């Protein structure tokens, strides 16, 4: 475990980003390798099996399940229309017939001679996936989807809500320390992805939804604000399906926290550019972080991303990610190999960080992340 460290969130530009776009079930890929796609281009399609409806036919006809076959007008696998007669009892001397109509359009899937139930299935539902970002199709995953590739500016957040969306980048504060208040938001922000500073108020979030803002990117959010906005508390960090009418991306954490200067500067430089954003977060094995992706011109130069497999080095810029120094940025000055005792009396691997005011702090290595700028 010698290389234990937390890789930081990416705040970078001119990189080549590959995005897998997969169907939930097997289906058809409708683009080819090398095709230029826009974020909205449909790249693959499939059909989800339709919903199932059960019908207690034996009960409705008042017969034994084992007798059902003689009353059936349709057999397993037959297509059925809504209102169509699917079974009929003869009644006495041809009188008092019971006719059972299909409650849905679809297929008669099974007839059970034990339970007396019919299982009816509605027609399949079409599902499509789009390219998510402007770029080109770099790879095809047979029957499942594609890999879209693009040169981009890429900023990861730590936590988000809401799913994929697209909009024009619009900074609404002047510096990463400023709070996003409701009065900063107006009708001109419809369709925009707003770049904020250290915090967003509940009123600002609500107003943003009202005026049709697509997304907000901000340093921090209060736990209580998020709870009030969502109407419930976040238990486990698996998000992306909130239907609140906005995608929110938090870059630093909970509480009032200045957006990292690098992220603020980079996002501000893209004012007026179109971004693809996603608030979906999954903090589990196979972690998924929220992101802002801004596709760049083809001609721009690709930057090689640094190889972090070697672990942490002296001089590296790091962020402390645990109280009481949460959010503090500094440079690694020492990496002692042995375990050391900290205030809690735990014996952990530590490092020493020189922070802005020149002070040197001793921090457990688990509590820092590398700033991958």
């Amino acid at each position, binding site marked *: *475990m010698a290389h234990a460290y*937390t890789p930081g969130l990416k705040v970078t530009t001119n990189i080549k980003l590959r995005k897998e776009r997969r169907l939930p*079930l*097997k289906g058809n890929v409708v683009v080819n390798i090398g095709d230029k796609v826009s974020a909205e281009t449909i790249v693959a399609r499939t059909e989800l*099996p339709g*919903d*199932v*409806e*059960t019908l207690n036919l034996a009960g409705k006809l008042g017969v034994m*399940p084992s007798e059902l076959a003689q009353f059936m007008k349709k057999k397993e696998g037959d297509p059925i229309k809504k209102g169509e007669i699917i079974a009929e009892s003869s009644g006495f001397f041809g009188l008092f017939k019971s006719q059972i109509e299909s409650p849905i359009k679809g297929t008669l*899937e*099974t007839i*059970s001679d*034990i*339970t*007396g*139930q019919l*299982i009816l*299935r509605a027609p399949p539902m079409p599902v499509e996936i789009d390219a998510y970002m402007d770029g080109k199709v770099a790879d095809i995953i047979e029957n499942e989807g594609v890999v879209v590739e693009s040169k981009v500016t890429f900023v990861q957040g*730590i*936590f988000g809500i809401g799913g994929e969306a697209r909009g024009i980048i619009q900074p609404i504060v002047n510096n990463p320390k400023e709070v996003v208040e409701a009065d900063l938001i107006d009708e001109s922000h419809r369709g925009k992805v707003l770049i904020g500073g250290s915090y967003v108020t509940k009123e600002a979030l609500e107003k943003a939804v009202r005026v049709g803002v697509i997304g907000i990117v901000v340093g921090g959010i*209060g*736990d*209580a604000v*998020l*709870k009030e906005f969502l109407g419930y*508390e*976040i*238990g*486990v*960090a698996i998000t992306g399906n909130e239907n609140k009418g906005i995608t929110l991306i938090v870059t630093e*954490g*909970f*509480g009032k926290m200045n957006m990292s200067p690098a992220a603020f500067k980079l996002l501000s430089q893209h004012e007026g550019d179109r971004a693809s954003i996603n608030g979906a*977060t999954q*903090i*589990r*094995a*196979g972690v998924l972080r929220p992101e802002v992706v801004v596709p760049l011109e083809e001609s721009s130069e690709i930057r090689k991303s640094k190889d972090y497999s070697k672990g942490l080095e002296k001089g590296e810029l790091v962020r402390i*990610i*645990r*109280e*009481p120094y*949460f959010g503090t940025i500094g440079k690694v000055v020492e990496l002692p190999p042995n375990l050391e005792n*900290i*205030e*809690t*009396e*735990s*014996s*952990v691997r530590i490092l020493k960080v020189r922070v802005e005011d020149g002070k040197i702090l001793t*921090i*457990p290595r*688990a*509590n820092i*992340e590398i700033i991958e700028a």
Partner: protein
Amino acid sequence: MEKGRELLRILATDCGSTTTKAILIEKKGGEYRLVVRGEAPTTVEAPFEDVTRGALNAVREVEELTGRELLDGEKLIYPAKDNRGIDIYVSTSSAGGGLQMMVAGVVKEMTAESAARAALGAGAIVMDVIATNDRRKPHKRIELIRDLRPDMILLSGGIDGGTVSHVVELSETIKAADPKPRFGTGYKLPVIFAGNVDAREAVKERLEDKTALSIVDNLRPVLERENLGPARDAIHELFMEHVMAHAPGYKKLMKWTDVPIMPTPGAVGALIQTIAKKQNINVMGVDIGGATTDIFSVFNGIFNRTVSANLGMSYSVSNVLTEAGMENVLRWVPFSLSRDALGNRVRNKMIRPTTVPMSLMGLKLEQALAREALRLALVQHKEMAVGLKGVQQERTISDAFEQVATGVTLVNMMELDLIVGSGGALSHAPRRVQAALMLIDAFQPVGITRLAVDSIFMMPHLGVLSTVHEKAATEVFDKDCLIRLGTCIAPVGNAPAGKKALELTIGEEIITINSGEMKLIPLAEDEKISAVIKPSKYFDMGEGRGREVAASLRGGVVGIILDCRGRPLALPENEKERFAKLNRWNSALSIYPDAKEE
């Protein structure tokens, strides 16, 4: 493994979701002892996608630490001779999210509950329980099966000779859902049928083509008796054959091990049962992890396991706060903290799950959260570990079908002899006494209860080993796995503060303790003393109020903890009074370095 040969050197690994841990056990002077433990990151996910890489790395660390030669390239060397080779290799696994199952039964409180117990006991996470009387519409059940994509389904229902149609209806639901397994699209979902023998043919007709169906003995052949063994064995077998075989690298790992790979919690359960049986005691084991908390118990020979899927200290820490509520967490914290600050801190831990507390304040808060996670997990365990429901005399199945829950929990804290804790929050607490107090506060043991922690999480390895070599497993468990914390003495009852709670007589010495107080009596790990405990008229040590009990008390790295704070334990609502009490107890037990100053 060579048959009939005495085992001199045993290698065991546990492939967890993040770390693969290897241990080496050797026979020395007639007994089995742990030699060393090595670990390496698990390699199930990209870029390696081969679990054996991590296992080999962990074994290489064992080689480096011991100077033994265990591997020839990538092959294990057999048999053990001098400094070379091993005699047996066993492994457990929880990588890739463990075994995720759905269970189905006719009556929620009866066969479905028995099925859930069988699955949990086998080491699975039960994603949902489907029952004929669960009040869900059939299409909702179908949607659920399809959405959750379990690794396996256990279908039960009907006592032998009982209902057939309800069981068949469940099988039709599964058939209609046509569930697809999580790993690999090229294989069929394993379904185990352990229900009414009379329904076998009909279930087979419906599920044989669409699923990999196995049929085993009914897990509830009569209302009065569960028969969970065959279903559990089938789960283990199918876990290997179907689920694990499709996880990256497992086919190779399965060839290396001398006995089948067990799901990690299944192995821990096997060990806890072995210990309870061998020592003839009631045991409770708890493993508080990052995402889940598992509780295992054996009371009067009956084994139960529960998984609290969203109670944990890193990924699920935020859910602990949500489920417990802020007041319940803050009641354990001996300083002022606003609700906003608590909320932000906990959510920050959720999004940075691998960070560790670096201030004393942070540690106290973390341990408060651990108490609540453990407390809630025990509540869930008590609800699941119950006697069979629906077994009243002279009732027909149709009567029983409608009856309300009648099962009484099997968890009797007064009869509990030993609590074993494991998982980061307990095993890595900077002071062992902190682990002891977390267990006491959360579980509130009563009477006389021994406390221990599994310091390096060796229980899975020893659990799978116990299935082939009980002696080696229990010897290592006893000597190297457990760190004995000591014994907790806690009478039931409450009395006004300052009133005498009990007298403890050890030889000539009499120790008196008042209501509302805690006291620590040092007694080393290998020491045992005889004592007489006489509670005052307000308190009960299991024999009735004021009645004395004689006991042999075992020491530990902490010692004997006298806890006369009362049961149930009530903390003052007034903040100042509460801080004062918490600090007094902290100081009596020397829990934190600053206990005296606060």
